[in-house]
């Protein structure tokens, strides 16, 4: 049996932090992605511009740099804002962002940009005849979105979504550099204390592979579900 020098339980806690962080960031990224995709496809010039600026900047700068900017700079920026509120309007509030929330927001913001591109491509891939048919049935805008555009879009989006999720999962490792106690952080702490880096890093790598394999299986099932009515060759 591998000797974990008493770090086993903490490593498990770290794995849970990683999973929670990844899932919550994914939710935020999907929401932001849908908003961004709509903004980029909208007829409004301003919305289009903002959407483009967001995706361009986020995708042009390394995740780690964005993360450090937001972790180290974020709270200071917020405080400058609240201080300004105080001096201008005598509104005294204090907004505290804990590390976990900052991690979710940062990763969510980063992957929102990638999701935006995925969703935009997928929405555009939906046959416009389908939408017209929906309209002809007298469906309103929202109903068309829910019954026709969204389910058909998902079929095209799932490969990209699955890809983004895999990258997102691996990106969570970076929060360890900033100080959040995810499993990579705990493994590095354990490696240094016990001077056995191999043991702990290989365990962490195995856990990542396990999560990736399980999600791959999950996405394959999801794809099957949304592929109903289409042949595989498509």
């Amino acid at each position: 049996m591998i000797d974990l020098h008493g770090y086993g339980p903490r490593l498990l806690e770290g794995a849970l932090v990683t999973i929670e962080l990844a899932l919550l960031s994914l939710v935020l990224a999907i929401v932001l992605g849908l908003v961004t995709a709509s903004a980029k496809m909208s007829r409004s010039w301003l919305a289009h511009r903002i959407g483009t600026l967001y995706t361009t900047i986020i995708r042009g700068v390394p995740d780690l740099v964005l993360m450090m900017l937001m972790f180290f700079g974020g709270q200071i920026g917020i405080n400058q804002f609240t201080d300004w509120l105080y001096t201008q309007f005598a509104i005294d509030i204090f907004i505290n962002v804990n590390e976990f929330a900052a991690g979710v927001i940062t990763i969510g913001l980063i992957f929102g940009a990638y999701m935006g591109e995925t969703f935009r491509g997928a929405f555009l891939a939906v046959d416009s005849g389908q939408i017209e048919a929906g309209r002809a049935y007298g469906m309103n805008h929202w109903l068309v979105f829910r019954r026709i555009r969204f389910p058909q879009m998902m079929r095209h989006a799932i490969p990209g979504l699955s890809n983004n999720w895999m990258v997102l999962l691996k990106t969570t490792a970076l929060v360890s550099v900033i100080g959040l106690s995810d499993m990579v952080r705990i493994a590095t702490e354990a490696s240094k204390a016990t001077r056995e880096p191999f043991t702990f890093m290989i365990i962490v790598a195995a856990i990542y592979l396990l999560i990736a394999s399980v999600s791959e299986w999950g996405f394959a099932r999801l794809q099957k579900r949304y592929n109903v009515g289409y042949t595989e060759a498509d």
Partner: protein
Amino acid sequence: MEALITWLDSRLADNSIFTLQTLSYYGEGLVTTVQLVFLSLVLGLVAAVPLAIGRGAKRRWVRLPIFLYCYVFRGTPLLVQLYLIYYGVVFVEGIQETWLWVILEKPFVPALIAFTLNTAAYTTEIFHGAIKATAKGEIEAARAYGMSQRLMMRRIIIPSAFRRALPAYGNEVIFMLHASAIASVVTIMDLTGAARFVYARFYAPFEAFLFVAAIYLCLTFAILYLFRYLEKRLLAHLKPASG
């Protein structure tokens, strides 16, 4: 706009952060980042071509190890791979006494190894996909000409797969540029390392990281335009003919 200029002006007038010394840190960091990314991409590309061919081989014992290698390196964070290699090489018995230690002692080569192995795995998958997507007609035509498997690979499949892989490979190049930021974790003074140094010394997160973000943004755009140019040149025959 005017407010921005006065702001910039006041910042530079009595700024204690962007001195000649810190700017030289950023400059050296830029050189290190470019070297690290360029070398790992070239080495990774060279390794990926035979690996991609082997990945689609009929023999299981060729195909399976390559598949496993790609699966592991694409399924785990680069940061973990970097830690494993950086700290792992130390545990090779007696390595400190050999000539190898001279190059492995500094963090650059271990990082280069990690980055190369990582990008090679991704590039292998990209090429494998591109090779698989070769049009059946092209292969049949080559067969009809009496080409051997080897000749067909060299003359038909690889060149056309290269072109098809270009857009995906462009993404991989940008991905590597961004991924290289973690080199600073093992004490390499790359661009991000320089930013972290400036931040820690002056407690100035916005200055330190926004500046470095702007440099990365420029590098990203440069790569983007390079690949767009290459695509225009090499994929011209795929464009619909225009009047």
